[in-house]
């Protein structure tokens, strides 16, 4: 049983939302959903819903704050006040500051920032509904918004969180599993390159559990990657079609 003494997996190995331990939640994705942004994406993992928008490359900062050899990334991970179980003040929390940093560092590993010296690329992420795995859903969405904005990247980034609940590893944890479980391990990578760009562990795992959790997350990330690519392909096809029609 978890921290709170809740039974989160039943005798048949089924989780509270009916999933098997290694099963993802239903995933939905859309890009180009906002008019003003250069690129945008709306991504849901189950009830967790994240909207990401990209502005730039643009001249947003005074020259002395830019870099002569590449673009600056500004990343904001932010939760809507109504996204959480209890209303969250819109002022950024320490957690949001930390997650903005780890998400920025992850994105920096993928973007060819050297193509846009002296500019700024802004990536704004709004968690509209939070039900576990918000930072990994955010990275998946942010990376697609960058693709939608046409910003060259080494690879897309996809992420997922693996958890440990009632002593068992489970994929893509939801909030109940996160708060009642023993560990939450968000992982994000550039799947085609096999490069891990985000790795955190909040909780305790043995060395063997950790290795197993890495394997589970990498496998799931590859599945998510396929959905990302299909979504972008569909969008591109639709745009081409619309252009033809005009």
């Amino acid at each position, binding site marked *: 049983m978890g921290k709170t003494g809740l039974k989160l997996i039943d005798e048949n190995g089924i989780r509270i939302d009916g999933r098997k331990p290694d099963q993802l939640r239903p995933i939905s994705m859309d890009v180009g959903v*906002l*008019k*003003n*942004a250069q690129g*945008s994406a709306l991504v849901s993992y189950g*009830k967790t*819903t994240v*909207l*990401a*928008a990209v*502005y730039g490359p*643009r001249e947003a900062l005074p020259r002395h704050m830019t870099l002569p050899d590449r673009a600056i990334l500004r990343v*904001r991970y*932010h939760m*809507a*006040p*109504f*996204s*959480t*179980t*209890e*209303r969250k003040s*819109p*002022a950024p929390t320490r957690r949001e500051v930390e997650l903005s940093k780890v998400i920025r560092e992850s994105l920096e590993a993928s973007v060819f920032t050297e193509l846009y010296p002296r500019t700024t690329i*802004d990536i*704004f*992420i*709004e968690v*509209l*509904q*939070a*039900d576990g795995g918000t930072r990994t859903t955010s990275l998946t969405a942010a990376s697609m918004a960058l693709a939608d904005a046409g910003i060259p990247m080494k690879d897309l980034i996809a992420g997922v969180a693996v958890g440990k609940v009632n002593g068992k590893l489970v994929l893509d944890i939801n909030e109940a599993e996160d708060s009642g479980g023993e560990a939450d391990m968000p992982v994000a990578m550039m799947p085609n390159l096999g490069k891990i760009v985000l790795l955190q562990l909040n909780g305790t795992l043995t060395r063997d559990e950790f290795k197993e959790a890495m394997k589970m997350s990498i496998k799931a990330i590859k599945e998510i990657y396929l959905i990302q690519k299909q979504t972008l392909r569909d969008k591109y096809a639709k745009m081409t079609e619309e252009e033809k029609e005009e």
Partner: protein
Amino acid sequence: MSVTPSTYPLVPKIQKDTILSLLEVGKRADGRGLEDIRKVKIIPNYIEKSDGSALVNIGDTVVLVGVKVEPGTPYPDLPDEGILMVNAEFVPLASPLFEPGPPDENAYELARIIDRSFRETKSIDLKELAVQPGQKVLVVWNDIYVLNHSGNLIDASAIATLVALARTKIPNYEMNEEGYLVKKEGYKGTLKLTKKVITATVAKIGKYYVADPTEEEEYVSDARLSVSFTEDGTIAGMQKMGAGSLEEGDIDAMVDLAWKVSQKYFSEISTAIGLPPQE
């Protein structure tokens, strides 16, 4: 402190001339007539984890409202009433002009316009929210989240607020031994909306009045007037915006047009959520 905006895009004179010459023949840049509104799309209950919510599009403008009902302490001078809190965030993904940070004067103004229209008409039965009068009441947090700014944020926010509040369920709070309100399973019922109130905005460009202005129309307008109405046509709030002036006759005409637009909004809302007409 309020400062003349220096980052607004300057609309070139030639563009303003084009807009005006179109208006002269009863047309607008997007093909609408002067009194037409853009396509309205309303999705109630967009955020499952909130107690009430609505996603509203007016053309490309997108506003999401989420409502949370939570325990709080009453105002000392109104000990037996719950509290309605209206907050607006112009998050930076909505416009290249929005910067991250605390709300600016435009966000505060918008929130306060919406807030006043509901507060002054007593649209919400706040007495019903006094769980323990004088001690513990429920606070209705109405958070307006602007997701894409293509003009007329006030009307989109007013529609989304009305729909979200009309669909708000009141969680089941009970007082425990230590005197805290604790959330139990399920809901106690829905928020009682005694009156429906909406706000409609009209812009004056040259000598023309246009309904539901786009962002570009806002920049070239002399002034805007947002007027709040209850369904029976009572004026329930008003705000002139913009650095220009209006004559008495302008105001009459603009209030008339705002009322016409309000009726369209009420109709869209009824269609979307099946609100019965007010008695």
